[in-house]
C-alpha cells in the first residue's frame, strides 16, 4: 500500500464511494419525496374533492344518510378508506366495512387540528398491518362555517417497497461502478506511477553516486517537466560532484603530503581525521583511528602543551598547536597540528654550541694576550728577552685570532656567496698546493706524493674555494702525520672527479668521526692548538665541497691513518652526492 499507484486507486475509490453515497442519498431522498408528494397529492385531491362534494350535506348538521351514500360510493371510486366526521370529531359516515365506526369519536392529533380549522397530516406505523400509513384531515366549510372533517388514510406499502427496490438497485449499481472504476483507476494510476517509479530509480541511482541523466519520459505535463528537470539536476549534480571530488582529492593530497602531523578531534574527543604523518609518528593505524580512535590514544598530546618528545629510536621532537575546529561558526572539535622540529632543535643546539665555542676560542687567546700584557705593564723592568718572548706569544695569539676570524669569515662568506663558477682544472690546483706544502712536508720528514692522471677532467667551480678545500685537507694530513707519507691522488669515475688524500698519521677515534665536521671541534684540543689549527678547517672544506655538488668522506683508523675522499662532479653534471656514512674503517684525519 506504500505505492502511489495504490494510494491513487484508494483515493479514486473513496472519492467515488463518497460521490455515489452522496448521490444515492440525494437521489433516494428525492425519489422518496417525489413518491410521497405524489401520494400525498393524490390523497389531498381526493379529500378536497370529497370535502367539496360533502359540503352541501352539512346544513349545518350532517345529513348522515346522504353522507353515508356519498362516502360509500366515493370510497369505491377512489379505493380509499375515508371517514366523514362532524365538527366534534365524531364519525358521521365511513367507507364500506368501516360502518361500525359511525358514532365513535376520533381523537387523533390531525383530527383535532382539523376541528380547529387547520388541515393536518401524519405518518404512523400500524402494527396490525405492519405498514406505514399516511393520514390526512381537512375541514369542511359550509357557508363559511366549519361543519365537519374529512379524515382519510392511505398505505405507504407501495412507496416503501419501491424505495427498497431502489436501494437494492442503487447498491448493486454502486458496487458495479466501484469495481469498474477500481479497474480503470488502477490502469490510469499506473500511467502516473510508472514515470514516478522511473524518477525514484534515478534518484536512488543518484544516491549511489550515479548522476548520469537517463530519464526518458515522453510527456508534456508536470511529470514530463519533472523528469526533464530531474535530468538537468542530475547533470548539474554530476558537475558539482566532480568538483567536490577534485577538491577532496586536492585536500587529501595536501594532507597526505603535509610534513606536519594533523589530528582532528570532535568535541567528545573522537578522532575525526588523522593524516599519514601523524600515524607514522605515533605508530597507529589510520583506519582504526578513524573508526574508534580517541584522544586517549595520544597521551603525549594531553601531557605536553608545547613540545612533545616522542620516545623510541626516532627521537622526534614535535611542536603541537591546537586550533578550534569550527563549522558554521560553532566549535565542533579541535585541530591538532604537529610540526617536526627535530632538525631545528638540533640546529639550535649546534648554534648554541657554536656561539659558546666561538666565545671560548676567542676568549682563550684574548686571555693569554691580556695576561701577558698585564705582566709586561706590571713589570716594565723585565728583561728584554722575557719581554720579547711575551710579545712573541701575544703576537702568536693575535695571529691565531686573525686566522680564526678569517676562517669564520670564509664560512660566512661561503654561505652567503652566490655561485660564480667557471671551468677549473683540479689538476693545476693540486699541483699548486703540492708546491706550496712540499716545504712543510719536507720539514717534517714526510713524503708528499702527488699522483695525477693527465686527462683529468675539469670541473665547474670557484678556484679559490677549491684551492682552500684541498689545502685544508692536505695540510691536515701533513699536520697530523708524524712520520710516513701523504699521498694525493685524483681519478675520474662515473662523471665524478674524485680527489683522495691519504696519510699515515695518528688517525681519528671512531667516536669522534661523527663530529669532526662540526665547527671548532677538535679531537685533541691541546695538540690542535699547538698545531695552530682553528677547528674550522674541515667545516670549511665540507662546506666548499657541498657548494660544488660534492662532499667530503673520511675513512680513518686510529693509529693507522686517514683517507679523505672528495668526489666532485665534472663539468656538465649537476647531480648532488649523498653524504656517505662517515663511519667505517678508521683513518687518521682531524679537523
Amino acid at each position, binding site marked *: 500500500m506504500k505505492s502511489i499507484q495504490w494510494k491513487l486507486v484508494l483515493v479514486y475509490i473513496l472519492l467515488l464511494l463518497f460521490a455515489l453515497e452522496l448521490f444515492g442519498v440525494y437521489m433516494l431522498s428525492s425519489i422518496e419525496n417525489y413518491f410521497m408528494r405524489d401520494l400525498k*397529492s*393524490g390523497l*389531498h*385531491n*381526493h*379529500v*378536497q*374533492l*370529497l370535502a*367539496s*362534494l360533502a359540503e352541501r350535506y352539512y346544513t349545518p348538521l350532517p*345529513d348522515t*344518510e*346522504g353522507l353515508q*351514500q*356519498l362516502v360509500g*360510493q*366515493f370510497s*369505491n*371510486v*377512489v379505493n380509499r378508506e375515508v371517514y366523514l366526521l362532524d365538527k366534534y370529531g365524531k364519525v358521521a359516515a365511513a367507507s364500506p366495512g368501516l360502518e361500525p365506526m359511525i358514532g365513535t369519536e376520533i381523537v387523533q392529533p390531525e383530527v383535532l387540528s382539523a376541528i380547529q380549522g387547520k388541515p393536518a397530516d401524519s405518518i404512523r406505523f400500524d402494527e396490525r398491518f405492519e405498514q406505514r400509513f399516511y393520514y390526512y384531515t381537512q375541514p369542511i366549510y359550509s357557508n363559511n362555517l366549519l361543519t365537519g372533517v374529512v379524515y382519510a388514510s392511505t398505505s405507504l406499502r407501495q412507496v416503501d417497497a419501491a424505495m427498497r427496490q431502489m436501494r437494492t438497485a442503487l447498491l448493486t449499481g454502486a458496487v458495479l461502478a466501484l469495481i469498474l472504476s477500481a479497474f*480503470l483507476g488502477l*490502469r490510469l494510476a499506473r*500511467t502516473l506511477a510508472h514515470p514516478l517509479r522511473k524518477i525514484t530509480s534515478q534518484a536512488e541511482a543518484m544516491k549511489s553516486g550515479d548522476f548520469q541523466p537517463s530519464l526518458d519520459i*515522453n510527456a508534456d505535463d508536470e511529470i514530463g517537466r519533472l523528469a526533464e528537470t530531474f535530468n538537468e539536476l542530475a547533470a548539474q549534480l554530476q558537475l558539482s560532484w566532480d568538483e567536490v571530488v577534485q577538491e577532496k582529492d586536492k585536500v587529501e593530497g595536501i594532507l597526505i603530503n603535509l610534513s606536519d602531523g594533523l589530528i582532528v578531534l570532535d568535541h567528545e574527543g573522537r578522532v575525526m581525521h588523522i593524516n599519514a604523518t601523524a600515524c607514522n609518528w605515533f605508530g597507529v593505524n589510520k583506519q582504526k583511528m578513524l573508526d574508534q580512535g580517541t584522544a586517549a590514544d595520544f597521551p603525549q598530546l594531553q601531557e605536553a602543551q608545547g613540545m612533545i618528545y616522542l620516545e623510541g629510536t626516532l627521537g622526534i621532537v614535535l611542536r603541537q598547536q591546537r586550533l578550534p575546529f569550527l563549522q558554521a561558526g560553532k566549535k565542533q572539535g579541535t585541530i591538532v597540528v604537529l610540526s617536526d622540529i627535530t632538525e631545528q632543535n638540533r640546529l639550535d643546539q649546534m648554534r648554541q654550541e657554536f656561539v659558546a665555542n666561538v666565545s671560548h676560542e676567542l676568549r682563550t687567546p684574548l686571555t693569554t694576550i691580556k695576561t701577558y700584557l698585564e705582566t709586561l705593564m706590571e713589570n716594565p723592568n723585565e728583561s728584554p728577552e722575557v719581554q720579547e718572548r711575551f710579545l712573541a706569544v701575544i703576537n702568536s695569539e693575535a695571529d691565531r685570532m686573525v686566522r680564526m676570524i678569517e676562517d669564520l669569515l670564509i664560512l660566512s662568506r661561503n654561505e652567503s656567496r652566490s655561485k660564480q663558477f667557471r671551468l677549473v682544472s683540479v689538476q693545476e690546483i693540486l699541483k699548486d698546493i703540492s708546491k706550496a706544502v712540499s716545504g712543510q712536508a719536507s720539514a717534517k720528514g714526510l713524503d708528499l706524493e702527488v699522483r695525477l692522471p693527465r686527462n683529468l677532467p675539469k670541473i665547474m667551480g670557484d678556484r679559490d674555494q677549491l684551492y682552500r678545500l684541498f689545502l685544508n685537507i692536505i695540510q691536515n694530513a701533513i699536520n697530523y702525520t708524524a712520520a710516513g707519507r701523504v699521498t694525493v691522488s685524483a681519478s675520474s669515475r662515473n662523471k665524478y672527479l674524485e680527489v683522495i688524500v691519504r696519510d699515515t698519521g695518528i688517525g681519528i677515534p671512531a667516536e669522534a668521526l661523527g663530529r669532526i665536521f662540526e665547527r671548532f671541534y677538535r679531537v685533541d684540543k691541546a695538540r690542535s692548538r699547538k698545531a695552530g689549527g682553528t677547528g674550522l678547517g674541515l667545516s670549511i672544506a665540507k662546506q666548499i665541497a657541498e657548494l660544488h655538488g660534492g662532499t667530503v668522506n673520511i675513512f680513518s683508523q686510529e693509529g693507522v691513518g686517514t683517507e679523505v675522499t672528495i668526489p666532485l662532479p665534472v663539468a656538465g653534471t649537476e647531480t648532488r652526492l649523498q653524504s656517505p656514512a662517515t663511519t667505517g674503517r678508521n683513518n687518521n684525519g682531524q679537523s
Partner: protein
Amino acid sequence: MVRAKAGLLASLVICSLVLSVLIIFGQPVPNSGGRGTGPWFGPKPGLHEISLPGRIYICSPNQGAILIETLSQTYSDLVLTLGQMEYGSEKGGDVWVTGEYTSDSITPGVLFRYDYQISRGLLANWLTMFYETDFPFASIDSVFVPLDGGPVKFINSATGVLWQLQADLPLSVFQQAAAEPRNPAAYPMAVMGQGETYSVAAGIFDLVEAQEIAVPACQLEEVRIEDIIHSFFLNPSIILEADGTETYTDGFGALRIFPSGALEYTSGRQGQGAVFWDQPQLMQATIDFLVAHGGWPGNMLPVYLSNRPGESVSLEFCSFSKGLPITGENVGIAVEFQQDQVSDYQRHLALAAEEAVEIYAEIKPLAWHLASDSQAGQFFAEGNKHISDLALAFYWQQDRLIPVWRVWTGNQVVHVAASDGRILQIKIQLGGQ
C-alpha cells in the same frame, strides 16, 4: 500505448456525455401521436366581445337618462363607435386630466357602465385604438362620452376619481342615438337623489316613474350532458347521491348534475401554476374553459369579477334578455380559479325562450320602494346604507323571470323585486363589485 490511453479517455468522455444527455433529457419517448380532440361546443368569442359594458345610459340635459337595451342594435352601434375612439388630433389630445366624479360630472352624453371594475388591459380589447399602457388608471367602471364634444371621462365610481381625455370619435352616432334611441325597451330614468335613511353615489340612475315592462318567458339551457361529461373525464365513475344528484368523478374532479339540470364541476386538484391577476388572461382562460366544457352561449356578459389578491378568483356571467341580465340563485355561469386551474364551475343558465310569450309586469322606482314599508325599505333603513350602484335585471325564480333591482351596497348585492320591493336574494360579493 499513448494512443490506447487517449482512446480510453475519449471513450470515457463520450460515455459521460451520452449518460449526461440521458439524465438531463430522460429516455427517448416514441411519438404516439396526439390525444385527439374533445367534443366541440361551438365557436370561441373574442375578448372584445366580453369586454363590453353591461349598461348604457343616454343622459339628457335635465339629469334624465334612458337605459337602452343591452346587446340591442343601438347598443351595438354605440359600443362599436366608442371602440373606434382615438387620441384627439388637436393640441392636448394626449393629455389626461384627473378630476373628481360627482353628479355634476354627468352632462348630456352617453354613459357606458360596467357591473364590475374592468381593468385597463381588458378595456384595451374594446377600445382598440389604445394600448393598455395608454391609460393612466388601473381600472374603471364607467366611460362617459359628452355629446358636446368635450373630453371623454373614464370613471372609477368606487373611488370617485375620473380621468378626462380629449378624443376623436364620431359624435354624430351618439347625438343621433340621443335624439332617437330607436330602442323599444328603453327605460326613462333620472339621477337618484339622496334618501333620508340611505345615501346614493354619484351617477346612479333610478326609474323616473312606475311603468310596465315586458317580461320574457325563459327556459333552462339545454346542455349536452354526455359531451360535457366526456369533456371532463375519459372514463368516469358515477355516484348517485341521496337526492338523485348524479355525480361523475374520476377521484380528482366531480361533475354533479342536479335534478334541476344545473351543472357543478368541482376539482380536487390544487393548482400548480401562476395566479391569474391579469384580467385579459383570466378572461381568456375562462373563455377557453367554457368553450371546452359546455360552450359559450350568445348574449352573455360578465357581471361579476372578484379581486382578492392571494386568493381564488371568481367570475360570473349572465345571459341577457330584453337588454337585462337574467340572474337568480345559482343562475348563470360561475367559474372559480385556484391559481391557474378551475376549481369550481357552475352552469345553470336561463335563456329567453325562442317563442316567448311575454307578460307584462309593473316596475317601480327603487326610491319608491325604499320610501315605502317594503322589505327593501326596511333593509336599507337599517344603518343608513349607501347605494353604490343600481341596475335593472330579471331574477329567475320558479321557472319564471321577475324584474328586480340589483342594488349594490357595501359588499352585498340585494335583489329587490321591482314590483313590490321584496328582497329576493342578498348575495355577498367578496373583493370587488
